[in-house]
């Protein structure tokens, strides 16, 4: 494995964490959006808020991690992506700002109408942000980002595959959030909310699965390189994802208790790494290879050191945060 490949792997590790934890936070916003009126949606919203509050900022930092590794280790790829897909990227950035601010304001703002406005801002941008991020990923997979950048600002992502991947991002986030919230509802002893999120996780899982299958067809017609490697070298991971997803659906249907979260995470992680395998050795299929985009060795060494420090310091700290949060030692009420 070359230094560049190792740096690409680090990029993917960051993206995996962001997809799992940041994705679930977006999904929380999705369930907030569809929870109904202030009264009907009060209890699910309270649970969502309680689950998200202590962790969403830390989860969000994985996005910064991915951006920083991308521009440090693979500067030409960063530049090519941002000069081509600036429309969905700018919309995602806008969504990130509105979502974080809306969430923080909702807890502290006075008056029902203010809370509603802040909450709606949070919830709507929680759906739009992952959608636009998905279109970026879809456009990259489809090979619509030329190595030199400045590809078409609209036709690069307004295509069936990028739009499908955008929808898949939303559905996957909702699926993860639904599964995580089942566990949270169980922990705080609210069996009706447990059922509530079980049904929703199940629904989101079916939709995400359907979108993934539609995505395979779109890959076949729009992203041939990725498709062919996905059903070849990537096939074990695709099957693993399907198995995890199917097992989880069965467990959910039967109201089983375990192991919900590992199965949901497994289904998502397998897809992300399947994509990595399918793209290899390209960062931008099929115009820019990992080694072509790579920064000098000394830069890569720093990226490795930073990653090692992150593994030693950040992961245990994150573990501490999640543990405290899961043991209800962190109070989200103000």
């Amino acid at each position: 494995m070359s230094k560049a490949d190792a740096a690409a792997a680090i990029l993917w590790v960051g993206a995996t964490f962001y997809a799992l934890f940041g994705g679930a936070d977006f999904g929380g916003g999705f369930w907030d959006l569809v929870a109904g009126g202030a009264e009907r949606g009060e209890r699910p919203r309270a649970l969502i808020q309680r689950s998200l509050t202590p962790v969403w900022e830390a989860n969000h930092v994985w996005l910064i991690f991915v951006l920083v590794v991308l521009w440090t280790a693979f500067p030409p790829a960063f530049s090519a992506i941002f000069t081509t897909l600036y429309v969905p990227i700018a919309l995602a950035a806008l969504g990130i700002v509105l979502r974080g601010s809306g969430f923080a304001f909702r807890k502290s703002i006075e008056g029902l109408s203010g809370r509603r406005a802040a909450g709606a801002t949070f919830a709507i941008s929680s759906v739009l942000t992952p959608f636009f991020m998905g279109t970026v990923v879809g456009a990259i997979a489809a090979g619509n980002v030329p190595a030199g950048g400045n590809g078409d600002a609209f036709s690069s992502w307004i295509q069936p595959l990028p739009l499908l991947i955008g929808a898949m991002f939303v559905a996957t986030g909702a699926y993860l959030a639904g599964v995580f919230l089942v566990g949270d509802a169980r922990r705080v002893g609210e069996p009706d909310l447990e059922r509530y999120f079980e049904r929703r996780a199940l629904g989101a899982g079916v939709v995400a699965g359907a979108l993934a299958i539609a995505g395979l067809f779109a890959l076949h017609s729009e992203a041939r390189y990725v498709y062919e490697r996905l059903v070849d070298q990537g096939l074990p991971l695709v099957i693993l994802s399907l198995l995890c997803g199917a097992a989880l659906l069965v467990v959910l249907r039967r109201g089983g208790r375990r192991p919900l979260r590992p199965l949901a995470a497994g289904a998502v992680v397998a897809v992300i790494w399947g994509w990595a395998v399918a793209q290899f050795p390209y960062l931008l299929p099929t115009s820019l290879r990992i080694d072509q985009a790579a920064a000098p060795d000394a830069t890569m060494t720093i990226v490795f050191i930073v990653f090692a420090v992150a593994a030693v310091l950040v992961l245990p700290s994150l573990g501490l945060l999640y543990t405290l949060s899961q043991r209800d030692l962190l109070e989200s009420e103000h």
Partner: protein
Amino acid sequence: MSLLDPLPLAASASNLLAAREQMAFTLGFHIVLSCLGVALPATILVANYLGLKRGDEDAMELARRWSKAMAVTFAVGAVTGTVLSFEFGLLWPNFMDRFGAAFGVAFAIEGIFFFLEAIFLAIYIYGWKRLSGWAHFWSGVPMFVTGIGGAFAVVAANSWMNQPQGFTLDAAGKVVDVEPLKVLINPATGYEVPHMILAAYMVVGFLVASIYAVGMLKGRRDRLHRLGLLIPLTIGLIATPIQLFVGDTAARAVADHQPAKFAGMECIQETGGHQTEYVGGICTSDGVKAAIPIPDLDSFLVGFSADTKVTGLDDIPTDERPPANTMLHLAFDAMVGIGSALLLLGLWLAWSWWKKRDIPKTPWFLRAVAVSGAGAILALWCGWIVTEVGRQPWIVQGYMRTEEAVTEAGGLWFSFGLVLLVYAGIGTTAILVLRGMSRRWREQGAEPETEGPYAPQTGVAS
């Protein structure tokens, strides 16, 4: 500039202006919040420590309130900081393409600090009720360390843009080798980093104190307000004299490293000794109008002798001179002026404390503190105008012009307009939310909030 650039010059120039405006605005907005992220934790921890060590309930209550305010400002700071990361690619893609491999290492390190800060800030902010007193206090200490570490890494990246080094370019201008330590520890790191960290402590110290000064002017003279004024004010006042020393060192280093920036900010037209220091005024090619001139002082400040030769704009090629000289000059003078005024404020308090162990009795002292927060923020902005506008036309001093770095993307003015609207809404809401929190705290008294919003009033006696 690329010969392949398909755009007519007018379009690139328009993009350059729009991109610079948007960057300046979003950075100016975020930097106030990042000061809170860097220095508010220490301020809170001081109050928390006093509360635990002396069983001081007022100090504890202040720490509790400030940490709740920080929950809001940190959230907005985290997302507006993310926007800046996006803007590197959205506005300056060619800069990142060419130099990301070199100065990206600073951001990689910043990423670690930001991660740890976000984690421990969450544990601290939400750990008030269930963690034991000292465990909770110690869970907050990493915020203080990571705030400083993060500021170091980010400002080191900016220092590198001013004093780039630690990389090798091939014939095509591509970075082929990097020496990360030299990138991080460049000639400007030594003064830019402490200057910014001290600025953060000043902004937080004076801003928080100014809120309590306003309260005291409105007649809220309880112990909580006094403490709420004194803790942050002391922090700001300790930082101020150190800041003036660091700033003075920085100005001399800029005269040495970036003569064009220095000539711009001091309105020096012709190279030579015996340079006049102009206080205020309008810079023109015929000299400075409407300023207070102090003969020889500029030369003296640069080299401790009136004979010190200082480079003037006449020695800088026309296309390498910084724009907007008057603005640069006034920004520099305003920063120095505000810093000096804040030093006087500190001396006033020190005198009064030494004489009678109390803050000055006159309402003018409280009025001065009440405006000091806005003053410190203004000085912060002025400092960044000097740093950033003074570096123009370069984005990487001597290596890459800002016009080469800017994106060719369309719709930049539309994007800037949208950013203005959204940030205006977020800024206004943030202030309203914080004011609302403050009002609720006053109505509930110093008692920790144990009642629900609809619970009957039970009075403050426990």
